[in-house]
């Protein structure tokens, strides 16, 4: 059975671009437009990996969603790939190794999204 990826991002075109790439790579893709609906989808769809945008309705909505996922026993083991342009925008520098405690995500992916990198990152972080 194909692995399922949930994309939580409010940019419809970006979601479509990622959906096309991921479906071509053999993944099932579901999406949600904001954090709240994202959390509902995690419960109802139980995805194998979550791609989460940092900036949605607020500058750091993605961070809060990530914390909520990690606090919920049922879903806390789902790998999270954080989608970010924040690294360039506010001067935040992310390093998943160093900031693991600070930010409970498994990987970072920078916008604009390179399709090959996207597939690589999803492939590396999704559990077999």
């Amino acid at each position, binding site marked *: 059975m194909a692995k399922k990826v949930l994309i939580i991002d409010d*940019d419809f*075109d*970006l979601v*479509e*671009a*990622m959906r*096309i*790439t991921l479906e*071509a790579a053999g993944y099932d893709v579901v999406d949600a437009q904001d954090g709240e609906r994202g959390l509902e989808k995690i419960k109802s769809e139980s995805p194998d990996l979550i791609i989460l945008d940092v900036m949605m309705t607020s500058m750091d909505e993605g961070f809060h969603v990530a914390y909520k996922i990690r606090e919920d026993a049922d879903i806390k083991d789902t790998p999270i790939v954080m989608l970010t*342009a924040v690294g*360039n*925008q*506010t*001067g*935040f*520098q992310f390093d998943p190794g160093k900031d693991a405690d600070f930010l409970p995500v498994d990987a970072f992916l920078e*916008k*604009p*999204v*390179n*399709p*090959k990198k996207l597939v690589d990152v999803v492939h590396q972080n999704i559990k077999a």
Partner: protein
Amino acid sequence: MTLFPDTPAFSIGSMLRRDRWLIRLRWYAILGLFIGVILLKTIQLGPPSSLNAMAIVGFILLGLNLMYLAYASAKKQFAMSNLVILLNLQMVMDLFLLTILIYLTGSEESPLSFFYVFHIILASIIFPGGFSYLYSLLVIILYSGLLLLEHSVYVEHICFIHELHLIGDSRVVIGIWFVFVVTMMVSAYLAQNVTERHRRVRTKLEITNQKLQEINETKTTFFRYASHEMKAPISTIQSTLMVIEDILGTNADERIINMLNRAIGRTSETIGMLKDLADLTYGNFQEEQQFDHLSLRELLESIVSDAKPNSDRKSQSLKFNSAAAPFNFFGDADALRKIFTNLISNAIRYTHESGNIQVSLEKIDLNYVVKVTDDGQGIPASEQTNIFKEFYRTPTARKLISEGTGLGLAIVMRMVELHGGDIQVDSLEGQGSTFTVQLPFEEEL
């Protein structure tokens, strides 16, 4: 003190500066007085008793000025009312002593009465409007008092110069007195008028300046939001283009692939430009700055090692020299990284293959000084002042490398300023350039 208008000209700071200034001026007056007494003694003009008394006045003034100085230095916090009293006290005391000096040098015979004039000018500079009139009134009272006392025989007139005997003729005295009064009042009016006008212009300038700053801030805020808002859609456009290219694969028409690649390249350039524009306004919003304690040496080491692959590609030598000390600094790591990444990547870009680039860090007085030196093409002297301007690229840089926004050094300048530092360039065309960044640090206790 409602007498004192609430303008920058009458802030506690400027009143304090005037206090120091007045004390400084008084040293010159004391020096002048002593020189005068010695001179008069040498040319044997004036009665010796009178000259000795003048010297005593000089010593009294010296003692007073030392007291004023001690008071001004000892006290850290001043209330406005205290300062006003202090300054007035000094001025009144000065005028009183000057009157004594005038008496000692022959009252209406004495040319020292001219010195009243600059006390009135001083009063109009130090205090607001009405004070210079008050002081001219005080001067007139002191002078008239002196003349009256002498003429009522309570006080004996000193004949400074034997040949001069104006005192007998009351018409002459009244004439002198009248000219004196007019001189003092006109002086007060003129001095007060000029300083008042000067203050008005200054206040106007300050208001204009404040407005300009506000406008500039609005502009920067607009820049920042605009560049952020534009970056998101362009980034999505690039993501989509990359997906299309990826899906088309290698089978597609080469022209289409080339077209897509060019489009992706152009979106990258635009994103780069928008990033630069955002960087240019970095730190405008307090909450954005992230000042922290860091080791400048470690930061530079990591920047140099990040830049290494680029210099290796051009077979250049890129070296970092620094003492082993950590060079503890309180700064914004991200902004500092941008400063030195920019300078080093410029050096790599504009230096020929197998050239040399040196980065050094040292402590000079209360500054950390970072130098980025290359033996590249250099910058002509005529262009050195322009390179920090926004969007400016030297013709040679343009010829050498076509892309580039011309914002890099403007960003560097901005980030250096954010740390209260300074940047300079030394360059000889054809021989290389040195960019020197000075970052002031505070000694840790």
